[in-house]
């Protein structure tokens, strides 16, 4: 009787074990596939956008980061299925993370080298910080909403990006102890470029700020600090939209 039961149960156990072991792996694969598709999409879009951004293709390392960082760990549980769709997603508290294409473009515009010191204003769910950390940047990130800061901290820790330094504070004054920075990325709305942030940027450094509202990035503002300390800004449409006067001559 007992043996019989055992004989009956063993395959069941094995099946169950297999099932449990299999699920994460399968999900991992599915996510990896989705990520690959997402990266392909971003690459195609970037090629088409080249005229406006002045960059024929995005930095291969940025694309590698987009292909490796698990975005599904940085979205809300209900949106995991949408994590690799090329669209912005809500992360709670009235905040969103940008669509992957915009994240890639903004990261690319920072022109990072490994070891660069980067400041992020607006940690959010932590996805952008994870991308920066993956690229080997010494990443500092500030979040103003306490609950979101906690969520970002947890997401980054769970995904293994413990090296990101986090702070819950007002981003306007930057992170003076860690300044100057090679790059600054502002992922929150700003009515003007905070003077303290310009001061904390190294000569030759770059700052990127998206302009728009939730779910809608209008354009990107790139602030470049010249070697002599002078500042030049560029406004970049994330799409190819020239010439403005269409018609036959425009093509």
């Amino acid at each position, binding site marked *: 009787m007992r043996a019989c039961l055992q004989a009956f149960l063993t395959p069941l156990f094995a099946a169950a074990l297999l099932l449990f072991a299999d699920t994460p792996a399968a999900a991992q694969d599915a996510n990896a596939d989705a990520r690959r598709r997402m990266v392909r999409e971003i690459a195609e879009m970037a090629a088409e956008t080249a005229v406006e951004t002045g960059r024929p293709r995005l930095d291969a390392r940025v694309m590698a980061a987009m292909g490796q960082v698990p975005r599904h760990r940085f979205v809300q549980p209900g949106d995991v299925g949408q994590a690799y769709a090329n669209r912005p997603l809500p992360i709670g508290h009235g905040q969103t993370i940008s669509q992957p294409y915009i994240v890639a473009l903004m990261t690319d515009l920072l022109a990072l080298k490994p070891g660069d010191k980067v400041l992020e204003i607006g940690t959010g769910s932590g996805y952008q910080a994870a991308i920066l950390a993956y690229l080997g940047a010494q990443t500092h990130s500030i979040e103003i*909403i306490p609950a979101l800061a906690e969520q970002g901290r947890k997401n980054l820790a769970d995904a293994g990006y413990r090296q990101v330094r986090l702070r819950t504070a*007002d981003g306007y004054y930057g992170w003076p102890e860690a300044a100057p920075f090679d790059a600054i990325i502002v992922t929150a709305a700003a009515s003007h470029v905070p003077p303290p942030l310009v001061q904390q940027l190294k000569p030759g450094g770059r700052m990127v700020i998206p302009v728009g509202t939730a779910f809608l990035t209008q354009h990107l503002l790139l602030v470049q600090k010249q070697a002599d300390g002078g500042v030049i800004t560029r406004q970049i449409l994330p799409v190819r*939209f*020239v010439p*403005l006067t269409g018609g036959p001559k425009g093509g």
Partner: protein
Amino acid sequence: MRGEAGWLRDTRPPYLAVGLLSGAALAYEVLLTRLFAIIQWHHFAYMMISVAMLGWGAAGTLVASLRAPLQRHFRLAFTASATLFGLSAVACFLLTQAIAFNPLAAVWDPRQFLRLGLVYLCLLIPFMTAAVALCLAFSRFGGDAPRLYGADILGAGVGALGVIALLMALPPMHALLAVAAVGLAAAATAYGLRQRPAWGLLAAAAVLALAPADWVQLRPLAYKDLTQTLRIMGTRVAAERSGPLGSITVVESPGVPFRHAPGLSLAAAREPPVQLGLYIDGDGPMPVVRYTGDPEPLAYLDGLTWALPYHLLDRPRVLVLGAGGGEAVLQALYHRARSVDAVEVNPQLVNLVEGPLADFSGRPYSRPGVRVHIAEARAFVAGSRGRYDLIQLALVDAFGASAAGLTALAESYLYTVEALGVYLDRLAPGGILAITRWIDLPPRDLVKLAATAIAALEGRGVADPGAHLALIRSWKTGTLLVSNAPLTPAQIERLRAFCRERAFDVAWYPGMPAEEANRYNQLAQPYFYEALRALLGPQRQDFVARYKYRITPATDDRPFHFHFFRWQSLPEWLRLRERGGVSLMEWGYPVLVATLIQAAVIGVALILLPLVLAGKRLPRRGRGTVLGYFALLGLAFMFVEIAFIQRFMLFLGHPLYAVAAVLAGFLIFAGLGSRLAGRLAWDARRIVTAAALTIAGVALAYLMLLPQVFHALAGLPDAGRVAVSLLLIAPLALAMGMPFPLGLKRLADEAPAFIPWAWGINACASVVAAVLATLLAMHLGFTAVVVLAGLGYLLAAALFRLRR
């Protein structure tokens, strides 16, 4: 017992109940726009309410299909419907809040459309239940249609005024409960106040009206500016005011101070002083700057693009339009303006800044040399006799709404060719008009504004408008200067120095070399300079025709400055949507078109449905005539009403009081017209013909005469202008009140089964007409809308003369 049954068969029409219910339903509609503006954004409110209003048509369908049983139990059915209106008015709004449709995500997330559908269904219920009761009354007492319609529409007129009064006295959620209470009171009146169940209804109404403040709460979307701000640590609401013009929330944030200084120069060394954030319907912030009388902390104001005119003029006399929290007044004080006249439409804003916030704000409106005027900007300028060296219009609407391109369907009389002309007329010789707007990419707002300024200058006989213009920009804001004299070389030198010191870009000044454009804030191309050069050159028309956005200047007849949409560009926008191009699209116009299509499809379905459901009971003969007559009346009535609300708004100034006075005027006089029509001894055909001729004649005459009349009387005090307006509306509205009830009365005599169907047709047509009128005005202008309405009335009268 037998007595009660006899009473239940009572045959007197419930005039009072009809009036109360009609008033409550209209008030509910107005309230919903208010409530949705707070929890969402008003453009979507427009869409949702337009569709929900089809509940009116659905009621016609329902009554047409169930006419016999409903009529047999008229009093019960009326009471039950009105009761349901009262209850669902509150319940359904709370449900829509819970559904939490997020229009911002709709571009990305198709599931949002399911939610939108649910919102429609929810809101349909209160409108439909109210309308079932009203339609039943017409169906049951068709012979009394003129008096009944009189009560109906008079009630609506009183409701239009009443809801404004309610919103002045109560917060919007409380006002909602009060309106629901009126619905229950209508039910009680219909049942008969001597009956016990009526007491129960009245008691329920009293409970609703006196419910505690926090019994029901508004739940704004998480993506509203205010909701987002309140998530930030240390923020707290310092003051709140609510009124018919909007709910104001003042937020204090000691931990993370507000530093609203859009487009502040990158060369600015210092940050703005402490501010409070002012939110209107949850959108903002508009800053209230801490001011002690010491000008030094205000230095940041000189680092904004709209400080420019102060560098070209010496201690000007300033007129600030849209003064809001007082920042533009501080700008003037900082630059030692000789005098400041500040115009603000919302008295609550000024009262807040001067009263509860006085210690913080330093009472900018009470400083020596400053005068504040509570008025709408355009009307104030039109009625003013003053002369100014500088008229300043700086960022009067919030960034969020214009960024999403959703304001397209909102008319604005601030930025039309005529408006700019009126501003120029008020300038002293050498005076400057300075308008500051948000930068959008690709540029449209400022380009269209420049085109408007050029048209206004040319309209005033200026041969070389380019000599009168200058345009500068930061990355966030652009300021357009329009001078009524050519800019002098000295002024141009100061303009260039101003921009150089602040790293602002010059986009136009007379004689500007091309290489000076696009230096500090580099765009892919010098879009703004190229646009100005094209607009001022011989190729203007070609440029405007080929530009990817609509940049034809807005006029008073087509006052849609924010309408930038062009069909030609749609395929490209849609293709680029996911490629980061979602902001290229201008969403307001397509949303309006979608609303029209939805309303038209549902409306037609509702009209056809009774033919299927109650086909046998409806006579075959005369269907086409009934359909044509009542649809034309629905369309034409709304066209006239909407077009003239627009005209009178310009004259009356205040948007809200204008709408209330004109709407109430139309409804009340139409109600009187309806009663008059019932008493006239003439043949109904003669009355309808005479009415149609009167409407067409008066409306066309007004088109030609009103501009002159308004111009001549612009200086009258408010009460005088309201009286003149009502006097002008009276003949038009009296005539407009006649054709509809006479049509119903005739049906009551000849084919009573048609009444609910006819009523429903009229309702559906009115809903479609409201959306259609806006769309037509965008394309053809309000003049065309009025002409079409006149034709509609004439055609309807011709149909009425046909023998069935």
